[in-house]
């Protein structure tokens, strides 16, 4: 296991100043800071609800005070690799909703795309503004060694977590002002401005003025509601619910105290299935009837574009390196984790024979639910899971259990290494932009590899050192 802070008892360079500070101040000071930080979080009201678990709907997401640090050199590689991926994924989305060149070329199987639940026939042939579908790409990256980074998955449908990146930094700057003064840590605070710029740049065809932008949320009961309101507030745009919007004569309007006001760009944080009951799920009360008609006729832009989900499917993921070569003519900068597709008979056989050492995931799953972590599972669990796989092999993929890097983290017994991953947020509009930073998630249980906040994972601030 790669420990990001210490290798063979030597402190790695990016962590030098932090370790000095920790040694100079002692554990009591750190413990006190930790309590302060928790109070701050609760006061601000940053919470994360977990669906279906009952209990407190405004649970605090555990915040770990010890930052995760990258050197400028490490970041340069991540930066180029993430942007490259975001470009290729968008090129792929445009392609599959238009000519399907990558399918004709025999690189990606047609079934995988066209029979995919996330493939949206309703948007075939539509040209979204700037031909961009996924405007915010969250790329989940893990590390296994000093130079080994792997992409675990891509999130093309409005990934969440960016508010933690920003709020974690605010808290850290309050807790450790001297460290921020003395070290050169890249700021992340420009993210909301960059997001606003991106959203403005995708104004729809019919928009003849400064676009009116809104953030569309399912409401205060949603687990990511805090983030929705935070981003709307930071950008200075309205936070709306479906009931606030309506369609009239090929345009979308919101209900205001002055009467209807036209809306041009919708940054939606609700799923495709719910955005328009006339086009998708008719039982949706979250959406806006008629929205898709307006979208089709260029009266409104939707971020992310409907249909973008087909690019972040776990089976499609395996083809992203091929997409990069096909559309960009480049070699992938970031590696994919080797993946067995259970839809292939040979792969299926291998997976079933090696369940105890693999991580098996549902192709369409997310949030860390419904997966099997082989080494951490019992024989009975493996047998039960094998039955599920056999029932519908196409629904599963498997990957080797990677030895994720670990970062020192506050736990009950003191400070101990815990596994981490990393999600930077790449913005795609008139330009491809990436804030130097991201969300580091940490698996708080010893040995655990599941970092999802819905599964008891925590978060850390991520520092990118500048040159």
């Amino acid at each position: 296991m790669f420990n990001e802070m210490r290798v063979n008892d030597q402190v790695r360079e990016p962590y030098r100043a932090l370790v000095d500070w920790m040694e100079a101040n002692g554990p009591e000071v750190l413990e006190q800071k930790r309590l302060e930080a928790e109070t701050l979080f609760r006061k601000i009201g940053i919470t994360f609800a977990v669906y279906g678990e009952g209990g407190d709907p405004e649970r605090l997401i555990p915040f770990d005070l010890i930052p995760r640090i990258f050197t400028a050199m490490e970041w340069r590689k991540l930066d180029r690799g993430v942007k490259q991926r975001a470009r290729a994924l968008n090129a792929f989305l445009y392609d599959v909703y238009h000519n399907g060149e990558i399918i004709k070329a025999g690189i990606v199987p047609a079934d995988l795309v066209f029979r995919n639940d996330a493939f949206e026939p309703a948007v075939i042939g539509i040209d979204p503004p700037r031909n961009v579908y996924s405007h915010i790409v969250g790329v989940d990256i893990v590390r296994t060694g000093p130079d080994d980074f792997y992409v675990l998955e891509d999130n093309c449908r409005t990934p969440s977590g960016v508010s933690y990146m920003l709020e974690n930094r605010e808290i850290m700057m309050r807790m450790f002002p001297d460290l921020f003064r003395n070290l050169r840590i890249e700021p992340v605070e420009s993210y909301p401005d960059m997001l606003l710029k991106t959203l403005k740049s995708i104004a729809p065809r019919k928009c003849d003025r400064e676009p009116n932008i809104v953030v569309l949320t399912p409401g205060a009961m949603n687990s990511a509601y805090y983030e929705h309101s935070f981003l709307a507030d930071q950008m200075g745009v309205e936070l709306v619910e479906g009931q606030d919007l309506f369609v009239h004569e090929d345009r979308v309007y919101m209900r205001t105290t002055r009467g209807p006001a036209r809306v041009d760009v919708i940054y939606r944080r609700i799923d495709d299935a719910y955005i328009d009951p006339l086009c998708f799920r008719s039982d949706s009360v979250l959406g806006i009837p008629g929205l898709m008609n307006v979208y089709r006729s260029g009266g409104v832009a939707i971020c992310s574009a409907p249909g973008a989900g087909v690019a972040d499917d776990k089976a499609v993921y395996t083809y992203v390196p091929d997409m990069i070569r096909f559309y960009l003519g480049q070699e992938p900068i970031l590696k994919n984790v080797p993946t067995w597709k259970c839809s292939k008979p040979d792969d299926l056989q291998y997976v079933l024979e090696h369940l105890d050492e693999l991580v098996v995931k549902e192709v369409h799953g997310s949030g860390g639910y419904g997966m099997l972590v082989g080494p951490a599972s019992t024989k009975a669990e493996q047998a039960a899971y094998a039955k599920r796989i056999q029932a519908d092999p196409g629904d599963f993929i498997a990957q080797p259990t990677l030895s994720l890097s670990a970062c020192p983290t506050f736990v009950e017994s003191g400070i101990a290494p815990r596994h981490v991953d990393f999600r930077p947020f790449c913005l795609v509009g008139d330009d491809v932009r990436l804030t130097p930073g991201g969300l580091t998630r940490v698996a708080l249980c010893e040995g655990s590899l599941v970092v999802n906040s819905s599964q008891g994972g925590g978060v850390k601030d991520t520092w990118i050192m500048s040159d």
Partner: protein
Amino acid sequence: MLSRTADNLFWLSRYVERAENMARLMEMGYRMALMPAAGDGNRSEWESVLSASGCASGYDPDAPLRQEEVANFLIFNRDNQSSIINCFEYARANARAMRTAITADMWEALNNALMELRRPSMHNLAKNELPEFIDWVKKQGALFRGATDSTILRNDGYDFIRLGTFIERADNTARLLDVKYYVLLPETSMVGDGVDNYQWTTVLRAASSLRAFHWVYRDDYSPHRIAHFLILNPFSPRSLAHCAEQITQHLERLARHYGQRHSVHHLAVETYSLLTQSEMDEIFSTGLHEFLSDFQVRNRALSHAIANDYHFGGQ
């Protein structure tokens, strides 16, 4: 501004004001209970409090009308829509549904109040702890209004918040007076004896206006003056006249800001004129109860008109 946001702001401040008024009502009951009974002696102070709270219909008819039971009903009962804990629950839920429309200071004031109220240790209020609790609630209201006053932008949102506050306050003052006159005093009872005066001053206390009264009138209490102070005196912060004046001003601001006038403006001015042009003698001779009932009807109509004219439905 989104109609839903305006709706939320309006009701948010109504709920905070309502919680505070509930606390003031209980303060009145607590005080009155320290005095020998008035009138026929069967009427209990806590029955009056319950009736003035406007939520008597939800009270278990078999439950005794004692401080413990009534206070518990008005503070912690989850089935009572207007209980203090529910007022703060709704206020915070409204705030959470439009975090972008309020400031961090306002949010913290509401959030902290609710977190305290939800704490189980809060729920075993000893009989003598009621005054302390009442003070605490009033403080939360003051904190929220103070945070609002010192941090929020003076835009339309501010107007909707203030409209909620004054509509709710006017409703409460009217009900407070109505209860004193209608429930406590049978028509046959003499107005003006010692006990009665004490009760009238208690009404002033419930409106936190005892000292203010002295400053304004520099004279003895009389039902006439006290009613004047709480109804027609524009300098009294809880009087109907002051509430009506504030409501009119904020509606005017909205009309200027939006460049639009609605039926609600007409209604508000009408009520305001009624209060500036009435005389106390006149009101007493036609009947205080009738006057207050009429005012409450007008006030409710005003609240509906605000919702209609600014495109948010009733709640």
